[in-house]
């Protein structure tokens, strides 16, 4: 049977949306900082880099709260390139 594989981008969107879904239920003043704080705290730079690539290119499927929080998510330094 075929394996319904999910791309890393799709997973990032889903993870961000899950975080937003939790904070959406919290008191209003905590929502945006909640989402941004959580992603800042737990997402490795390349994940945030991928996240911003998606946001900056207007990727579809993000929860509105994620997009509202995006400004407060730290933009990581550009990827440290390898020599390969």
């Amino acid at each position, binding site marked *: 049977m075929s394996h319904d594989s999910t791309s890393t981008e799709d997973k990032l969107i889903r993870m961000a949306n899950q975080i937003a879904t939790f904070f959406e239920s919290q008191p209003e003043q905590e929502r945006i900082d909640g989402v941004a704080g959580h992603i800042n705290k737990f*997402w490795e*730079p390349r994940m945030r880099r991928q996240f911003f690539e998606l946001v900056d290119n207007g990727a579809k499927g993000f929860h509105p709260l994620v997009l509202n929080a995006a400004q407060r998510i730290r933009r990581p330094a550009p990827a440290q390139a390898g020599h390969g």
Partner: protein
Amino acid sequence: MSLIHEIDYGTPASTAETMVTLTIDGRDISVPSGTSIMRASMEAGIQVPKLCATDMVDAFGSCRLCLVEIEGRNGTPASCTTPVAPGMVVHTQTGRLKDIRRGVMELYISDHPLDCLTCAANGDCELQDMAGAVGLRDVRYGYEGDNHVRARNNGDINAKWMPKDESNPYFTYDPAKCIVCSRCVRACEEVQGTFALTIEGRGFGSRVSPGMHEHFIESECVSCGACVQACPTATLTEKSVIEIGQPEHSLVTTCAYCGVGCSFKAEMRGEELVRMVPWKDGKANRGHSCVKGRFAYGYSMHKDRILNPMIREKISDPWREVTWEEAYAHVASEFRRLQYQYGRDAVGGITSSRCTNEETYLVQKLVRAGFGNNNVDTCARVCHSPTGYGLGQAFGTSAGTQDFDSVEHSDVVVVIGANPTDGHPVFGSRLKKRLRQGAKLIVIDPRRTDLVKSPHVEAAYHLALKPGTNVAMMTALAHVIVTEGLADEQFIRERCDWSEFEDWAGFVAEERHSPEAVETLTGVPAHLVRGAARLFATGGNGAIYYGLGVTEHSQGSTTVMAIANLAMVTGNIGRPGVGVNPLRGQNNVQGSCDMGSFPHELPGYRHVADDATREIFEKMWGVTLSSEPGLRINNMLDAAVDGTFKGLYIQGEDILQSDPDTRHVAAGLAAMECVVVQDLFLNETANYAHVFLPGSTFLEKDGTFTNAERRINRVRKVMTPKNGYADWEVTQNLAQAMGLAWNYAHPSEIMDEIAATTPSFALVSYDYLDRMGSVQWPCNEKTPQGSPIMHIDGFVRGKGKFIRTEYVATDERTGARFPLLLTTGRILSQYNVGAQTRRTDNVVWHEEDRLEVHPHDAELRGIRDGDWVRLASRSGDTTLRALITDRVAPGVVYTTFHHPTTQANVITTDFSDWATNCPEYKVTAVQISPSNGPSEWQVEYDEQARRSRRIAGKLEAAE
């Protein structure tokens, strides 16, 4: 070094506070009231002869050997059943007593074999000791009369004789040597709580009987070993003692199975382990054990152990044995190459929750100081990471609030998503003991676990909810408590943030959270939820115990918060008998989290972005540390598939078998260029490894494990590592090969570094642990004795935080294609992925994983008990045999995952907890259908695994 002899006081200690003074054989002694004369005597150093008494069970008064004379009282009362009284004057040795005791011993010995020299208990036999103690010189009755000793009496068949029962793989029962003291029967009842043993017959015909005159293996016996420990003769004896002989020295160490962390005496003869005996002073287990810790250590000497380092270029090549130096140099140059070629963040490590704190600390240090990134994670990712997050948010610490002794003070116990009698058996026994004393039980679990109803234990409420609806259930319980005015307002005002409470109370009070409203989600009748909530809120000390059935969901962290809310709203925090108690899975998963195994945290749960914390370690290690969080295990695998993550050092974890969505894990591993596995065996992950570094067992090294109650226990080396090196040495040598100037001579020096850098461990050292036995962190200037109960006068974070917990249905939903919900769990005799227990005789209890199916679902699909069934989800499919049972509800199927061939994780999906990415193992939409045998994937997998385990120049290893 010599054998540790524990004093047997004959009867359990009294917990009374009033002291009573009496005179025994001319010596004055003060003991707590309620103490038996026997125990008081032993405390005064006078050993009254005894056979049926032992301090692990209550006094019984049957052997008539422990008689004493009391001035002013008639007769010769038994010292075990007679409590002390003020001013009592006791004589333990008089002419009359001597005569009676000798007479009793004559009767015992007249029906006992006289094969002392060849008996396995020789040197450890209480009957022999008592014969000596009472001065037995002659048996006037002779040995020819009615007896249980000989198969034939003068050629005639002796109907009273019974052959030895050797059915249990670990111990034998020889009825010919039994003195019917009932110690085994009482140990099974009082300590283990299984009630598998009884005395059948009466008078001279009395015999110990497992079940209804069955063999041990066919009875309800769970092989915990309590009866063997209790037996004063060779009637119940470890087979290892029969084979090897009596041990000559012992060391106290800590079990390497589950998160209970039982203390054992490893009893040795030279470097040969004779047996593991639970240590009475062990504060987690109080002298009890389960079949795994007590008996299932044979894996450590198993022929499958790999003892030489190996490397290979491609995973399709056979392994090539190399020297340690070659292996270290290869890993160092490969990791250097990968970082040069793909960037500093292209490599990482996984610490082991099976290894010691010291070893875990070194692996995260290697990643942070050596690799220069924070790409380190541990198996807690897939089990209790939501506990760390949820409790950290609510209370301010990422750990349980109590010690295990606390359960002795509980009045109402909630067990949610945990099956302690299988998963945490020794705690399960301690809980059952409290329940038999009258504490009430609420079980929240989709499946009817043994706790719901077993001998002398019955749950007041079993809320058999639909998998995935924990948050709805917990919020509904809170709804009842808040709306019916059952909240502990005084506690909340004193300890918690009142405005957050008000916000939360308003939220849970909404009608949509009422038991009636959520009934359609959870499937649990509302009146049961209301009853359970009222019981918990009003029943006295309320304690919540939970396991992976809480955390391994897409809302795992939310459920943990809901549990914290429930404890706070009822004021059940900060004293014995209450609290929030995560039952941690692996022996050192608490410790591996404490030691900074998470990619966002340095040791002591301090975020990598915290400058002050980084500075402490930067100074100590002489490096600059990254302030950015690293990748979690699943993120590493995603990045590997994407081509940005290339090298992984895995110490003691089998991610291919234990992590969800096997195909994705395999794809991630296959995409890496250097996978280093350090383990005892060629585990499943090693199928995808390029370097194999042999690991060592807990018997072969010094260190510490931290159990579920935050208890730091010593692990002591009792034998030389078969592979040559303890795991901490391997990591250190690897670090040195990578150019790091590490030079630890002993794990105690690593602990000193941990204590110097981590405030909650400030006072911990090996000397201190040797002195204290064990301590529970925080252990520092403020709490030098450690902290059995946390949050006593206030929460670590200041005010307790109530957090709204909105139920969100998981995306994993049943539908026409996959109409059933699969949930997973454990069984007593096997442990986790089975790497250890499958290599012991424990396989006699569970040789394969079975799929539990409700009769209704089975009939609908034409599946009979024992049939092969195909189990399919959107991730993949596998086959296993069905077990038809109504323990699961219609619509729910259940399996364990102890055998690699089952491939249960081919089925599980990539959904995970919103906060921590802890996988959603506990809910997968599946379909089942009759099948002829293994799936294509299983066949392919087996073939790949077989090829992958080839070692050049050696015959193929068979498992």
